[in-house]
Structure formats: C-alpha cells, structure tokens
C-alpha cells in the first residue's frame, strides 16, 4: 500500500514548502503590490493563481504565506519540544512533590480544549507573528511534557540507568546519555504531528484575525479574505486552502509512516509494552 502517493509525494511537497519558505527572500516577489485593473482577476496570463480583492498577486502572497506558516511551525514546535521535554523529564526524574505539581499544571492546560487558550491569548496579546508563537507555545509544550514524563517514568528503573547512577554519574549526564536517546523516537513522532497541528492552528488564528498583521500574508488570512468573494472569485479561497491542506496532509502521512517505521509502542509505567 505504501506507493508513491503516500511515500514520495508528501516528502517532495514538504521539501518544496521548506525551500520556498527559506528562499522567499531571494525570489522577485511582489506580494504587496496593488494592481487596480486586476482586482479579483481569475488565474490566467501573467498570474498563475490570479489576483485578490486588492489586486495583489495570489501566488506571490501564497509563497509569503508559506514562509509565515513555516516560521511559526518551526519556532513553536522547537520551543514546545525543548520546554516540554525539559519540564517533563525533570519532573519525572525528580519525582515527589515537584512531579505532582507538574502533573497538575499539565492537566490544567489540557483542560482547555483545542486551541481555545491560544485563541484567547492571541486575542488578548494582539496580532503579530511573535504573539502567535507565544500563544501556540503556551498551549503546545504540554503534549511533549506529558509524553517525556511518561517515557522517563518507564525508563528510569531500567538496569542501565541504575548502573549509571551506581557509577556516580550526574543527573544531567544520565538524562542526556541514557534517557534522551531512548525517548527520541516517540518525541520525534509527536513533533512531526505537532507540525501539522501548528500549521492548522496558525492559519486558524489568522483566519480569525488574531494572527499576523496585514498586509503580511498568511494562508489563514487569505482564506478569510476569500470567503467574502466566494461567488465572484472562488480562486481566492481555493488556492491557499489547497496549499494548507496539502502541507497538513503531507505531514500527517509522513508522521504515520515514521510511526510505522520506528514501531513506537508507548511503554507504560511498569515498563511493560502495551
């Protein structure tokens, strides 16, 4: 079943996403140039994806939007992964009162469904790419903290960790050399799915008008602008939506493949495979 459609295509798409995002600065893009005679023009000569309601080139704006979502995803996933893993690992390894507090905090954050807390935070902090990153990281670290905590709890009683402790290794060295390498696979998979979630979340916030500031382009903001002109210019909704959908689908397919390949079975607290 693993043919080109689920194998190569997502990788190529994601590579394209990354290259366009990083290289956007070097391309001769005109995302903010207004051409009044082209307002709402359908795809055709000169512009592959047509023009938007202000007469701006949609393809150029899509590439800038790709950059926005890529940057936000990269920042939020790295920050959340770092923060969550650090807190989860420390709390499980340390145990006791500190651990109980961490669990409670994690549970409290999990009690806000979906990106609700991020919506509220982004709304209160005001628009801007920094605030989007802050809002999504505030919500995002929790998953990694829970996962790394569960991993450390099951790993810390393994013989090789006890041996390392008996030999007098420092806590930090044990975490770095004996725990983190074994936790890497599930964390990488969680982070992969995290990219898809953050891309949707950033676009969602921008759709609600809580994301990047206009005129900066974001796929979510482009979809929102497009919904006002759906009957006359459906390409305004279709183009950024297809891009967003393609990236998220690719990340999810890749995540599934990674999970199958690394064959992750989360270990429970007794260290037995479930």
């Amino acid at each position, binding site marked *: *079943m693993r043919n080109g459609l689920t194998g190569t295509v997502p990788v190529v798409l994601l590579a394209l996403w990354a290259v366009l995002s990083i290289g956007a600065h070097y391309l001769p893009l005109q995302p903010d140039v207004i051409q009044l005679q082209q307002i709402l023009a359908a795809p055709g000569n000169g512009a592959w994806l047509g023009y938007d309601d202000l007469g701006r080139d949609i393809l150029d704006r899509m590439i800038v939007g790709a950059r926005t979502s890529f940057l936000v995803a990269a920042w939020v996933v790295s920050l959340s992964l770092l923060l969550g893993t650090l807190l989860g690992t420390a709390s499980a390894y340390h145990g006791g009162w500190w*651990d*109980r507090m961490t*669990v*409670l*905090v994690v*549970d*409290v*954050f*999990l*009690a*806000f*469904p*979906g*990106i*609700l*807390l991020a*919506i*509220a*935070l982004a*709304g*209160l*902090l*005001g628009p801007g790419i920094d605030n989007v990153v802050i809002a*999504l990281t505030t*919500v*995002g670290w*929790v*998953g990694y903290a*829970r996962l790394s905590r569960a991993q450390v709890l099951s790993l810390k009683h393994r013989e090789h960790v006890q041996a390392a402790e008996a030999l007098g290794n420092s806590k930090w060295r044990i975490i770095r050399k004996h725990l983190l390498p074994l936790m890497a696979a599930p964390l990488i998979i969680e982070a992969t*799915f*995290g990219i*898809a*979630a*953050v891309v*949707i*979340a950033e*676009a*969602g916030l921008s*759709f*609600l*008008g*809580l994301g990047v500031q206009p005129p900066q382009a974001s796929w*979510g903001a482009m*979809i*929102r602008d*497009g*919904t006002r002109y*759906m*009957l006359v210019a*459906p390409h305004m*909704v279709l183009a950024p*939506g297809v891009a*967003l*959908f393609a990236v*998220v*689908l690719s990340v*999810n*397919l890749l995540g*599934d493949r990674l999970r199958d390949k690394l064959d992750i079975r989360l270990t429970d607290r007794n260290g037995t495979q479930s």
Partner: protein
Amino acid sequence: MYPGTRANFSHITPDHKYNQPMLAFILQRLLGALLVILGVVSIVFLLIHMIPGDPVEIMLGESASTADREALRVSLGLHLPIGVQFQNYLHGLLQLDLGSSIHLRRPVADLLLERLPATGLLAMVTLLITLSLALPLGVIAAIRRNTWWDTGAMSFSMLGISIPNFWLGPLLILVFSLWLGWFPISGRSGVSSVILPALTLATGLIAVLSRMVRSSMLEVLGEDYMRTARAKGMPPGRVILHHGLRNALLPVITLLGLQLGALLAGAVITETVFSWPGIGLLTIESIQSRDYPVVQACVLLISVTYVLVNLLTDLAYAWIDPRIRLGSGH
C-alpha cells in the same frame, strides 16, 4: 493541545490506584476534577492581567476620558490588590456571577444563556452525524480489512483529519449554498441551516472516531467469544453487532468524551465561519470588541464543560467496565 492531537485525561489524578471500591474511585476523580477546575479558573482570571499595557485603556480606547477609565477600573475591581481581585472573582463564580459585559452593559451570564441553545443544538447534530457515519465506516473497514473498503474508509479518515474547519466550511458553502442553493449561506434560520456547520464540525470527528472503531473492532474480532458465537450458528450480522461492536465500543466511549473537546474548540472557528450565534461566535465577537469579561466567561464555560464531560466519561466507563476500578485486568 491542538485540534487533531489526542488529548488524554487518563491521569487527571496523579496516580492510578485501581484497587479500591467505586465510592473511593468517584471521590478521587471528583477531587481531581475540582483541582483542575480551580487551575482553569486561575488561568482564566490571570488572562486579563496578561494583556500588555493597561487593560482598561485597551478596552475603552484612547479617546475615553479619565473619569470613564477610573469608573471601569473600579467596576472591574482592577484597582484592588491582585489577591483580593482573585478572591472576589472566585466569590462571584460561586454565585454564578460572571461579571457584566462592558459594551452591552448586561450580565455575562445572560449573554451565555442566550447563546447556549445554539451551540447545544450544533453539538447534538454534530454528534448524531458523527456516530451515524463513524460507526459503520469503522466497522466495515475492520470486517473488510485490507480490501478497498478499508483503504477507502481510512483514506477518507486521513483526509478528514487533515482538512481544517475554516477551509472545509467555506468549501461546503461554495458547493451547497452558492452553486447548488440547498442550504442557507450562514446564520441560524430554519432547520436546514444547522446541516452545513454540523457537517463541517463532524468531518474531523468522524475521521478520528472511525479509525478508533476500526482498530478496536479488529482487536475484538480475534477474541474467542466471537469464534464461539459464529460456531454456534449465529447470523454473521448479529455476531458483529451484538458480540463485536458492543465490546469494541468501550474504548470508543472514552475517545468520544475527549473528542467533545475538539468539538467545542472547533465550534469557535466553525461558528465564526457560518455566523452561527453560539458561544464560539460570542468568544470571537467579544475578543474583537475587547469585551474581556465576556472572553473570560466563554473560555471558562467551554473548558469547565470539557472537564465535566471527561469526568462523566471516566465515571461511566468505570461503571460499565468494572476492570477499570477493580483492577483485575489492565
């Protein structure tokens, strides 16, 4: 957590202790939920203090007079020490007093009550659509494993997980409202207006749930009692429904409880897409008009509902399946 990722409340209390009678189990869970709700209240309370700058100035705009600002500051209690503010906030909540809206000058509780039926209706119809599609889809995928039925259902599920609400919604409007003219474009008018928003919300849930039903069903299909039922000559359909699905549904119930969170959070975006006059739209409207007491109340209501639903799911699950509380299996 983000939509699409799997929230998990399995350790709402710090440590599982399975060897205890039902009452202790219930008490432990209640206490855990209470602690979590207290935490949620604290964060919601702190939200207004996370606003960069002076919240009163942001709410009223720069043109407001000093007297107006001070009046609002006093009426929100923002001039008091933060500890006292928190005490007052808790005290108000215990009497179901959520403050009043700055722009509409009405109690927030009234606003919420007004919007609640719309969100309730949307959630009910969404759940109905979800269950009536996800169960058959998952069961068929499981019993016709590795056929094109299975591939089709799971591909649909993959697409459903990956499509964002705020794109699917406009697409459905484009096709069914603008091109075909079957449903109203937005708002709440008549029975048919709930269909498109519910379908938008249901797609993601169907995707997640049908996957779960499939994997849960696959596990059950290998059980001895299924072979026994078939061996004694029971019709295959009955075996699947009475012996298979009934047992496979147990883990599905938990997931459904957790997914209700995705539904509630998704409602914020979906209600905005369709101008559906529920709590979600109220959240976004009040963010846009900087009516922070209303924002706080909406976030609090949605989150506490989520915690309570998960608590109920947990308790129902333990009630249905004694292994959870008595700890023989697992």
